[in-house]
C-alpha cells in the first residue's frame, strides 16, 4: 500500500460523486436542449418538412460558433452567465451551464445526423397516412432514429466526462480537478493513477450502457 500513500480515499469518493453529479446533470440538460435543437436543424434543412434557409442558417451558425470555441475558453467566457443562471461559478452547480452549452450543440448535430439517416420514405408514408408534422417527428422520425440518437448520447456523455475534468480548472471539483491539483501539480502520481483509472471505468460503463440500449432499440 506504499504506492497509495498520498491517496485520500474520502477525497476520491467526494470527487467521484461530484463528477457523477456534473455528468448526470449536464447530460440530462444536454438531451433536453440538444434533441429539440437537432430536430429543428433537421426540419429546417433543405428539402425537409419545414425547410427554411434563414432559420437553418442561423441555427447552424450558432451551433458552429459554440462548437468551434475550445471548451476551456468557453468555461471562462461563460463565467458571468453562469453566475447569472445559478448564482455561483463554483462547484457542481457552477459547472453545469458551461458543460451544457459545450455539449448540447455537439449533441444536436448528432441528433440531426441520426434523423437524416431515417429513410425519406418513412416520412412520406406517415404524411400519406395523414400525420401532422408534429406526429411525423414524435411518432415516426424520433423512434426510427432512436439507435442513432442513443449512440450519439453515449458519445456526448463520454465527451462530457473529459469536459468535467477541464471544468475542474475553474473550481468545479470532481476527479479531473483532483488529478490536476494533486496528481500533476504536487507530483502525486498515485492520485493521478487512481483518478484516471476511475475515469476510465466510468467511460467503459457509459459505453457499455449505450451499446446495450442501442442493441435493444435496433430492429434493422
Amino acid at each position, binding site marked *: 500500500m506504499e504506492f497509495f500513500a498520498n491517496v485520500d480515499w474520502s477525497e476520491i469518493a467526494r470527487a467521484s460523486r461530484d463528477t457523477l453529479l456534473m455528468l448526470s446533470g449536464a447530460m440530462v440538460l444536454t438531451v433536453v436542449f440538444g434533441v429539440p435543437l437537432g430536430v429543428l436543424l433537421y426540419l429546417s434543412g433543405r428539402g425537409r418538412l419545414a425547410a427554411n434557409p434563414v432559420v437553418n442558417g442561423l441555427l447552424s451558425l450558432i451551433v458552429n460558433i459554440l462548437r468551434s470555441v475550445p471548451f476551456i475558453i468557453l468555461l471562462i467566457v461563460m463565467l458571468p452567465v453562469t453566475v447569472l443562471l445559478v448564482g455561483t461559478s463554483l462547484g457542481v452547480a457552477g459547472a453545469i451551464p458551461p458543460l451544457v452549452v459545450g455539449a448540447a450543440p455537439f449533441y444536436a448535430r448528432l441528433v440531426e445526423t441520426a434523423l437524416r439517416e431515417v*429513410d425519406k*420514405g*418513412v416520412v*412520406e*408514408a*406517415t*404524411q*400519406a*397516412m*395523414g*400525420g*401532422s408534422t408534429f*406526429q411525423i417527428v414524435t*411518432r*415516426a422520425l424520433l*423512434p*426510427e432514429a*432512436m439507435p442513432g440518437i442513443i449512440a450519439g448520447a453515449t458519445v456526448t456523455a463520454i465527451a462530457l466526462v473529459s469536459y468535467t475534468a477541464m471544468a475542474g480548472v475553474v473550481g468545479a471539483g470532481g476527479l479531473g480537478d483532483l488529478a490536476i491539483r494533486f496528481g500533476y501539480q504536487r507530483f502525486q502520481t498515485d492520485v493521478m493513477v487512481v483518478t484516471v483509472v476511475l475515469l476510465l471505468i466510468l467511460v467503459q460503463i457509459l459505453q457499455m450502457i449505450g451499446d446495450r440500449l442501442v442493441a435493444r*432499440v435496433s*430492429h*434493422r
Partner: protein
Amino acid sequence: MIRLDGVTRRYRSAAGERVALDAVDLTVGKGQVFGVVGRSGAGKSTLIRTINRLERPDAGKVFVGDQEITALKPAALRAARRRIGMIFQHFNLLNAKTIEENVAFPLRLEGRPAAEVERRTAELLDQLGLAEHARKHPAQLSGGQKQRVGIARALACGPDVLLCDEATSALDPETTDDILSLLDGLNRDLGLTIVLITHQMEVVRRVCDRVAVLKDGRVVEEGATADVFLHPKSPVTRAMLAEGEGGETFDASAVPTGGRVARLTFRGPATYEPELSRVARSTGVDYSILSGRISRIRGEPYGQMVVAFTGGDADAAVTQLTARGVVVEAP
C-alpha cells in the same frame, strides 16, 4: 372518383427547369383499377403523388371524390389523406415498430380509441394472413410479407382509394403475382378504386381496367387496357409492349412471296372459336401463322396473331373475318 385537370409540375434546379408533368388530364372512375405506365423519368411517380398532394402541382386541379385536393387547408388535407391509402415500392414500414404497431399506426395517428385500434388491427392482420407475424419487426419479413403489411396499413382507415407506387417492382415474379391477386381481390370485394404506377406492362395486363401511357410528363395514350394493349397507337406503348414480350415480332423474311400479311385480333369467347379455319375453308385461302399469342388481359381472353394469306380470295377472307368480330389490321 379521381380527376386531374391540367396538372403541371416543374422542378427547378441548377441545371434549369424540368417539366415533370405537363398539363395532365385524367379521370379514374369509381371502382376502377387504373394503371399509369411509362419509362423511368416519364413523370409517373410525380403524377401519383399529386393525388394525395405529396407533390403539390404548380398548376391544375386534383379532385378525389367531391374534394378538390389541391385547394385543401392542412387539417382538411390530412383528413382527406386518411381516405387515400398508399403503398410503396420499398414498403416504407417503420423498422422500430412491430408489424402490429405498423398496421395500427395510421389509426393511432388519427386518434381512434384503443379498443377500436386493437380490434381493427387484429382484423386486418387476419385478413392479410399476417396474424402469426404480429409481434415481429419488418426486418424479419420477406419482401412479399412486407408489402402485405404495407397494404394492411394502407387499408386501416378504410380508404376509398388505394395508390400503388411501383408496389411490385421490388418483388420477384411469384410474389408479384401474389400481391396483384390481392389487389385484384380488394378491388372486387371492397370496390376499392386503385391507381397504380408501374413500368411493368405485365402488371397492367393482369389487373388494370384502364391504362394511361406517360411520356415526358404527357399522357400519350389512354384507354381500356385491352384496347391499348391490342391496338397500341403511340410508339412508346408499342416499344414497351414489345419489350414485355421479349421483343417478339413477326419475321418479315418469313412472309411467303405474294402473300398478304395481316394482324388478326380475337377477343372474348371468339378467341377459342375456329374462325380462321372456317374462313379459310369457305374462301380457299391458305394461311401461315408468322407470330401469335393467346392470353388474357384483366381476365378477358384474347388471341393476336400475324398471318400471311396466300391463294384464294384474300379480300373475302378479310371481309368474313371482320364480320365475325375479328379485327384485321396491317401488321
